[in-house]
């Protein structure tokens, strides 16, 4: 006689903790961009490469968690929130880390120099995107409390205010992007055209990180809607 009880089988593997762990990895991964951009500005490519590897392995760890969550969430599972909404949120969380990896990969691969006149703005701009991701992480960290309170009451209000804050950060990030593009436009004639094109691309991608972080927040709002 083996020791088994079928009442246990009714309790599915809840994806709440793993989704939070995934987001923690994503935040760690994106946070690496801060020292990364500093290294790029200083032209310290061995340091930049090191950080790129760290970003890569954090992104891999997040991928592992994502795969595990998907495997354990069959269609027959019943949850207080839509399974599709939850998986979509996870997918966007994952895209944030992917974007960070792409940025690091591109910049290291091309050893992209940062023109001195936009360097400070660039670091500031990147740290806005990082802040947006952090804020999304803070909101996702409330997921277990949301499940506990059954997506009602005081907890919902708390998360809604976190998402509003996230929207503000993203808006701020947008404004900085405009400013940064203008500065780059002013000096672009003095730079190598190919390098300029890629600088625009990096600006674009760093902005994407904040956009995606905001989308994580709006996906979380989908879960709150009843």
């Amino acid at each position, binding site marked *: *006689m*083996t*020791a*088994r*009880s*079928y*009442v*246990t*089988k*009714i*309790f*599915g*593997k*809840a*994806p*709440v903790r793993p989704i939070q762990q995934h987001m923690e990895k994503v935040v760690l991964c994106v946070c690496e961009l801060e020292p990364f951009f500093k290294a790029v500005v200083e032209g310290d490519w061995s340091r930049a490469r090191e950080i790129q590897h760290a970003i890569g392995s954090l992104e891999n760890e997040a991928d592992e968690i994502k795969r595990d969550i998907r495997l354990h*969430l*069959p269609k*027959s*599972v*019943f*949850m*207080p929130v839509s399974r599709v909404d939850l998986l979509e949120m996870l997918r966007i969380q994952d895209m944030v880390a992917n974007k960070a990896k792409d940025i690091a990969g591109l910049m290291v691969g091309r050893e992209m120099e940062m023109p001195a006149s936009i360097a400070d703005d660039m670091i500031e701009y990147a740290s806005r995107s990082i802040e947006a991701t952090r804020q999304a992480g803070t909101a996702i960290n409330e997921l*277990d*409390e949301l*499940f*506990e*309170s*059954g*997506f*009602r*009451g*005081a*907890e919902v209000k708390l998360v809604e205010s976190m998402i509003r804050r996230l929207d503000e950060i993203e808006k701020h990030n947008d404004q900085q992007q405009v400013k940064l593009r203008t500065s780059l436009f002013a000096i672009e004639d003095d730079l190598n055209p190919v390098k300029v094109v890629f600088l625009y691309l990096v600006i674009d991608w760093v902005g994407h990180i904040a956009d995606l972080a905001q989308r994580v927040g709006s996906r979380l709002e989908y879960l709150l809607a009843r």
Partner: protein
Amino acid sequence: MDFATTYLVLACVFGLCMAWGIGANDVANAMATSVGSRALTIRQAVLIAAVFEFLGAFLAGGEVTATIRKGIIDVALVADQPELLAIGMLASLLAAALWLLAASSRGWPVSTTHTIVGAIVGFAIAGIGFEAVEWGRIGTIVSSWVVSPLLAGTIGFLLFLSVQRLILITSEPFQNAKRYVPFYIFLVGFFVALVTLLKGLKHLGLGFTTTQSYLLAFGVGLTLAVIGKVFVNRIRLDPVLDKQFHFANVERVFGVLMIFTACAMAFAHGSNDVANAVGPVAAVISLVQSGGSVGREAALSFWILLLGGGGIVIGLLTYGTRVMTTVGNNITELTPSRGFAATLAAAATVVLASGTGLPISTTHTLVGAVLGVGMARGISALNLNVVRNIFMSWVITLPAGAILAIVFFYLFKAFLT
């Protein structure tokens, strides 16, 4: 009857086997939500189960035992052949015990109750005749198998909604938990005591009037609530715990409540599942004691319920602890606030059924209660295919119990008459 002593010994041996099987496996199912929410350690759960399964069987198991003993078969038809009834009951018991053993070793969601009822109906049709089965009564029993999970689900749904409204979604969940949890404890004590007093104690010769029962039950509820209040007040807010998970301290308060509901659940399980396991034993023993007169109303000897209760405790201590440990490790996401709502809903339904003399499946009722809490957005992930498996187990268990009982019936008939 020629083989009176043989019948008696076999009945006790098979009955003990059955009770052992229930203690070894089924109790862990009944205690799954209590152990799974980590409000109790395995050791505490085993202790609670041992004491309250026994009490449930002894104090509130009489009605269900009576149903199994004489409610399913029209005994008047076999008045001239009492040994047919005796070997039929023995065959049913053995069939149920073996089927249960086979099924639980494979983790199938079978129920003791369904097996026993299937077995008795099977032997009655084959050994006595189609008309010997009290089909009306069977109809009631079978519909109670559908109603009990639904009722438990509804109660679980409402209980959890009340927990949510009164405690979880408020701005001060910890204070509110401390305020309301003693009230829930009162509810547990009051309800279980009331049903037991109103319906269960007849066979012990303790008859109370309705008013006395209500007053006594109120007293029991109040006493438990006061004890619970003392424990709840000892819980101090631990800010470190709340950093990780804001509701950690709230759940500690529910942990106190969970101890009481776990007791109620073990009591309920004892009153129903143990009772229907010893029902056939009671039937055989009353036949033998009355010297083979089928119709006579033999009082249910309370030592039969002792036998059942004792068997369960042995099963629990020899094997059930291990099953319970696995259960505890396999349920990872159940918090006491949910575990309490599901367990109390199931316990209340089962106790009610026991009082009415309806043999139902404790485990299926518990599954219904868990689903009810899930419908109230209480549980983070449920596997709904378990529900399909339960329907499958009904379809398989009833004929399996019946066929096995028929086989053993003819075997016993060949050797024992």
